[in-house]
């Protein structure tokens, strides 16, 4: 989800930075947000890493009676074919985190690289801006569905598609930042001394873009987790793995899921898990943004001046 600060990058609002500053004052403490977010993500990561050790059963094994209710042997009961819900929940964390993190890494890398590249020359800038705008115009989920229909919906395909399609918005922001930095006097000085454009980029400009990249990374993880879960929920996910979205999908396929109480242990845990993980990343992303807000905003506004 794009927050207020990010959206405001698209238009010029002279008073906005002042408004945001007031917000920061009004907000009492930033700490809890980051803390809660980090603990959620940390807990999920622990689940994912320790799954083989703490999961009571193999998530693919038919270890229980079909539709078993929660019991001592199966704390969260079993799904419609008799696989242990708790084990699937623990292992499912792996897929969500894997897809989220790897897709975000790819996307951030592309956005960062291209954003920086735009500072090399005017031509590069034009190409990067144009491509970024094009990416923004694509409907992401339909595109992922289309590619998955061609190539089969395996985890690598989903990761690559998400990584390749979501770099647009942030490449633009980083490009804006780069352009703003380029105008600064110290860059001119460096050029005068004879530093090549590439060197300028790497030594001077790139470090300034780090906070943006970090914020972007977190937000992309959030988006990728949602996208993968949605795809799995539709039944278009990887058939060899069981992710949280798959669990929700299977539960929704059951005819009685809403009529008896089984939605409590078959639907709620996985849906809640997805929701919590996403919320965790959202909190972290929010905390990072508000902390580095003034800097980001100034840079974006400066970019808008240039873009006209």
């Amino acid at each position, binding site marked *: *989800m794009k927050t207020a600060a990010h959206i405001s990058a698209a238009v010029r609002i002279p008073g*906005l930075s002042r408004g945001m500053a007031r917000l920061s004052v009004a907000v009492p403490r930033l700490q809890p947000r980051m803390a809660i977010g980090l603990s959620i993500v940390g807990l999920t990561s622990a689940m994912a890493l320790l799954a083989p050790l703490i999961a009571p059963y193999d998530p693919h094994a038919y270890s229980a009676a079909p539709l078993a209710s929660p019991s001592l042997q199966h704390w969260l009961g079993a799904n419609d074919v008799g696989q242990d819900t708790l084990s699937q929940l623990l292992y499912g964390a792996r897929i969500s985190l894997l897809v989220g993190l790897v897709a975000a890494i790819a996307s951030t890398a592309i956005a960062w690289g291209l954003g920086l590249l735009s500072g090399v020359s005017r031509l590069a800038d034009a190409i990067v801006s144009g491509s970024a705008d094009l990416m923004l115009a*694509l409907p992401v989920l339909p595109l992922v569905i289309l590619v998955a229909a061609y190539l089969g919906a395996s985890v690598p395909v989903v990761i690559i598609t998400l990584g390749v399609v979501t770099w647009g918005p942030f490449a633009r922001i980083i490009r804006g930042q780069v352009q703003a930095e380029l105008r600064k006097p110290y860059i001119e000085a460096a050029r005068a001394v004879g530093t090549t454009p590439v060197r300028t980029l790497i030594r001077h400009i790139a470090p300034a873009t780090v906070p943006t990249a970090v914020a972007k990374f977190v937000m992309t993880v959030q988006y990728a987790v949602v996208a993968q879960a949605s795809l799995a929920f539709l039944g278009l996910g990887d058939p060899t793995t069981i992710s949280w979205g798959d669990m929700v999908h299977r539960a929704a396929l059951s005819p009685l899921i809403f009529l008896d109480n089984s939605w409590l242990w078959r639907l709620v845990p996985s849906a809640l898990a997805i929701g919590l993980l996403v919320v965790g990343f959202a909190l972290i992303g*929010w905390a990072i943004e508000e902390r580095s807000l003034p800097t980001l905003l100034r840079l974006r506004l400066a970019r808008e001046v240039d873009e006209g």
Partner: protein
Amino acid sequence: MRSAIRYLLLLVALFAISFALPRALPGDPLAALASGGGQDALLVLTPQAHQQLLAYYGLDQPLPHQALRFIGEMIRGDLGYSISASQPVTRLILDRLPWTLLLVALSLVLAGVFGCAAGLLAGYRHGRYERLSAVLLLVGSLPDFVVGIGLILLLGVLVPILPTSGAATSFADCGGLAIGGCAADLAAHAALPVLTLALVQLPAFFLLMRAATLGELGQSYITAARARGLTERRVATRHVGRNAILPIITLLGLRLGTLLGGVVVVETLFGYPGLGELTYQAALSRDFPVLQALFLLGGVAILALNALADLWRRRIDPRLRAEPAA
């Protein structure tokens, strides 16, 4: 105008992608253009049948020829033929478009109106609604289907007051008040899907409006207006609100991308017969002409909405109008 050219170029690029995608992905392009199979189904065809199909789709022609043919089809509005539905794709899309438009329009209006009103209010109260903002932010970051399932449980099962699937009661006897009766039925069926989409969209509008309001409130012209003796309400609506709206308009254009993804999930969850559900069905049956057409349509819609938002902003904001078109 510079931005008009930019949009046009993007449109051309979009069409180019749509043309190139089936031909660029691995496998036989015939698999990608003839639906219902994917790469494996082609093994069924005899060599002559294969050649015939290639000729029929023009795939044995050199690429420039194919491109010209593609352009011709686009101009004619011919989006191909869906073999799994035995209908031209254009007709399938036109049949379902009204339903999706209904959901998209209603949810955007709901999210926009409520989000902006609440945002204006919250901005006025100088950031006092921190808890609410936090909750809304988090609700808005949830996946659509999680919100949707939650609503089904709340309003369709535990307290069953709303229908949870379909767009209308089939063959509903609309009774004497023909329009009124059917409208109520349509509204009831659209309620949960629209609510789901709106809930996910609303936080973005709320937060942006709040930030923009806060920004406007600090400006000198507001102090001037107050000094002139305008009521606070007047100040809020005519001055703060109108200016704070500007970024919201841009937001509309940017939200459409995620909204289209949400529409696929929500329509499938609620069995709503719109374009999103069509995407899902087409994905299941590997109906490539339909998938490609929907992708293209989605991109065009996003571009169009962004262009419109740009235009609207220029009209409202005199500062932008005064800019030289560099």
